[in-house]
Each structure stands twice: as C-alpha cells, then as structure tokens.
C-alpha cells in the first residue's frame, strides 16, 4: 500500500524559506536547553569535585572506549526478548478476544503479573534459574508481555462493531478476519505500545544485567561503579539514552510508513 499519489497539496520544497521552516521552534528550544545543561556540567567539572563531575574530555574518552560488543549484546537481548513478548502477547490477545469467558478467566492473572515490580522479577529469576541468559530473558518477557497483551486487547475491543459486522458479512475464516480487519485496525495502538514498552524494556534489561551478567551494558555499569569511574558510568548512561532514542525513532519511521494514509 505504498506509492499512493498524495495529491497536489503535499508541498515540495519552495524557494526562500526561513530557517524556522527547516528547524521548528520547538527543536531550537530543545537544543538550547541541552546546550545549557552541557555548559552547566562543564562549569561543574571545572569548579566541582572531579569524582562527581568528570570533564567532557574524560567522558568522551570513556565513550570511545566503550566495548561495542557489550552494547550489541544488550541490544540483542532487548530485541529478541521484546519480539518474543510481542508475538506471545498478540497470540494471547487473539485467542482471548471475543471470548468473554476466557478473558474473564485469564485477564486478572495478566493484570496481577503486571502489578509485580520488575525488580522483584529480577530477584525471583536469580532464585529460580541458574542460567544468566535465561534469567534476563525471563525477566524481560514477564515484564513486557503483559503490557503488549493489555494494549493490544484494548485496541481490539476498540475496533468498531459496525466494521466487524461488515467484514463478517463476507463470512471470512478466522485468519482473514484478523488479517483484513483486526490487525490493521490495531496497528497504530500496537506501535504506541512498542514505544512505551521500549522505555520500560531498556531499564529492565539494564537492571537484569546488573545482577550476575558477565556481558552487556548492565555489566559494564557494574564494573565502572566498582572502579569508581564516574566518566564511564556517565558514558554508559549516554549509550542507554541513545539506544532508547534510536529504537523509538525506528518505531516512528515504521509508524510514518504504515500510517501514511492518515495524512494523505
């Protein structure tokens, strides 16, 4: 469904545009705020204690020396466990949707799981399982899956009844009912759910790695803390923020691609 002609009023570039058209006001304001914060940090690193405020130079050196392998491992753990949580969540929602009894039976359990703090799952994981990789995987899945379930199920229930009736009038099998109507309908909500869940998942994977892992960003943070290297802690933090922003940016791109009809 790409390549649809957007029409005459989708304006291309026009000559003589002001700077504000390339850089919206809000973006400029954001840049100013971040620059101010960076400057404040710089001043603190000059006048404050060096163990609390490392200079930008030291942070930059720490950033350059960050082992990319650890970053890759954490991203892989994040991606695999989130994708799996998503698939499990969608299968669950699909099976529960339009089956009120099954929903009444299972949904309270899902809500209960969701109320348990992530840190508790980390501790349970340590007590229950030996394998480090499995522990991380378990914690991630048990935290992310319920969020995907609740969000997708809510979205499914929001599919207008008149559209469901219309599609049913063609007497579709279950597969087509979902692929032609339900899944495309809930897509915007699913993408929003991904963005929210990413924020959660980046934190959780780090916490899970803090305990017992011998690789990954969380492990790097532990080492940095043991060596009292504030510059390295700061560098890892920057990496975590960048990962989150990049992944959310990816979802935004997917959103723009798949929901382009809205602005057509």
């Amino acid at each position, binding site marked *: *469904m790409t390549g*649809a*002609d957007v*029409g005459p009023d989708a304006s291309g570039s026009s000559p003589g545009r002001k700077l504000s058209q390339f850089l919206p006001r809000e973006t400029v304001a954001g840049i100013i705020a971040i620059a101010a914060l960076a400057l404040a940090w710089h001043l603190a690193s000059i006048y404050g204690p060096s163990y609390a405020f490392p200079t930008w130079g030291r942070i930059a050196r720490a950033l350059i020396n960050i082992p990319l392998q650890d970053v890759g491992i954490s991203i892989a753990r994040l991606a695999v466990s989130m994708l799996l949580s998503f698939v499990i969540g969608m299968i669950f929602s699909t099976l529960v949707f339009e089956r009120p009894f099954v929903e009444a039976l299972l949904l309270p359990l899902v809500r209960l799981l969701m109320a348990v703090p992530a840190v508790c799952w980390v501790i349970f994981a340590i007590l229950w399982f030996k394998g480090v990789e499995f522990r991380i995987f378990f914690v991630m899945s048990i935290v992310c899956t319920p969020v995907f379930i609740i969000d997708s199920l809510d979205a499914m229930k929001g599919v207008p009844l*008149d*559209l469901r*009736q*219309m*599609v*049913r*009038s*063609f*007497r*579709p099998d279950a597969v*087509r009912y979902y692929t*032609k*109507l339900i899944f*495309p309908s809930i*897509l915007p909500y699913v993408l929003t759910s991904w963005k929210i869940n990413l924020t959660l998942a980046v934190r959780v994977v780090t916490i899970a790695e803090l305990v017992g892992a011998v690789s990954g960003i969380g492990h790097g943070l532990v080492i940095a803390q043991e060596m009292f290297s504030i510059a390295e802690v700061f560098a890892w933090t920057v990496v975590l923020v960048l990962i989150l922003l990049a992944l959310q940016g990816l979802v935004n791109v997917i959103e723009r691609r798949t*929901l382009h*009809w809205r602005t*057509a």
Partner: protein
Amino acid sequence: MPLHDQPAIFDMADAKPVISLDRVTVRFGDQVAVNDLTFSVAGEEVVALLGQTGAGKSTVLNLILGQIKATAGAVIVDGCDPYADYYALRGKVAVSFQTDRLLPWRTARENVELGLEILGRPKNSRSRVAAEWLNRLKLTEAHHDKYPHQLSGGMRQRVSLARALVVDPDLILLDESFSQLDHVTSKALRTDFLSLVKGLRKTCVLVTHRIDDALEMADRIIILAVPGEIKLELTLSGAARNDPAWISAATKQISAVMTAHSGEGAPESADAV
C-alpha cells in the same frame, strides 16, 4: 460481465423463494424486536422493508444475513439456514449499510477488493474487477486510489455499493443505504444502483424509512411496524410506478398506516391498495 437491459422476469407462483421467513420471532431480553413474521422474497425481486425507527427492519436483515439467530421460527435463504449453515452462503449474500463502513486505511479500490480477498478470488484480476465495479457505480478513475476521508459522502456510498456488488452475490441487502445522503445524491445513486440490480437480475431486499425510496425502487413493499409486524403489503407494477395519481394515493395510504402504528398507536389491519 454484460449488463442486460430487459426487465427482470419472475414468476412468484412456481419459483422457489430465495428468502423465506416462517413465523419468525426475535427477542432481545424482554424486548420483542420481531413478532411472528412471515414473508418470502422470490428470485430477482426487489423488496422494500419500510418502517419507522425501531420497527425491526435491521433485525430482519441481520436474520437474513445470519448474524443473529431467531428466537422462534425458521429463516431460509437460498435453501439454507443462514445462521446455522454460516459458510454455506459464502459469497452469495452481500450487504451495504447506512454508513459506508469503509476501511480507512484502504483506498477506494482496495476497499472494493476486500470481499474478493476474503472469498479468495484470483489475485491477478482483483484490482481490475474492483476498478470495473467502481466505474459501473460511476466513481471516476481519478478517485479510485483515494482514501475514504478524501471522498465525499456520495462517493463513499458508491464505493460501499461496489464492494457489495463486486463479489457477484445472488442476494443484495441494503440497510438505509441512501438515507444519509442529500436528495440529489441519493436520487442519482438509487437510479444507478437499481439499473445495475435489474440488469444483473439480482435479488434485493432494501430497508428504508423513506416512502419515496421504497416506491421508486421496489417491486413490492412490506410495511413493518413495532414490533416487527407486517401492517401493509403493496405490489408495484411498472404501470403503477409511472402513474402519479397511483403513487400519490399509495404514499397517502402508506403514511397513514405508518402514522397509525408509530408510538403506541392501536393496531389496525390494512389491506393492499
């Protein structure tokens, strides 16, 4: 698919009805929506179910569609029970509603393709067949690749009718499909739709609360009143339809019956004109 111009010929005496309702009652909780209703529709007949809001018209359509089950009585469509033999009527019945119910993420053409996809019709011809039907319903090519929100209400309703007709159903159901359009748009669309239905010799049940819609389109009009009971039945010949005096007499009689049975009016039996 060639269109024929000759009028549909049907013989109600020996033709097996396409639809038959036999003493059908539908209750929602305590509420009786349809009460002991019996009627049948012959092949190639266009029947209007006319009545005010709450008369049970949509409930009757849902029975024919097989979306709900009768509390009592029998519904037979094309020889099957549309509720119990759900898949037996696949591709044989299509419906269009008061609102267009188009999928907002699909273009006009893709919306028309929906039924073809669900019914697993050949992939390589879907787009062409959909475009043909949009043309038949007089949606110009320039609009085929527009999204619903880029089309006017009348255009969207044309797409919705094309989506119903494209699967080549034997039976077409319309639930107030022209009611939300302005008079000029509605009139044009009714004319276009009717000539297609007659040309293709389809059977059609159309639900409406507008007397003029029913008189213009139907071979037979069934007037329903709360709770889903027949109050009057009229058969229109071609001659009658073109006779203004007959039309105005029929309009008067129908509106008298509808008024008498609106609200808590006392039941009253009326005979055909």
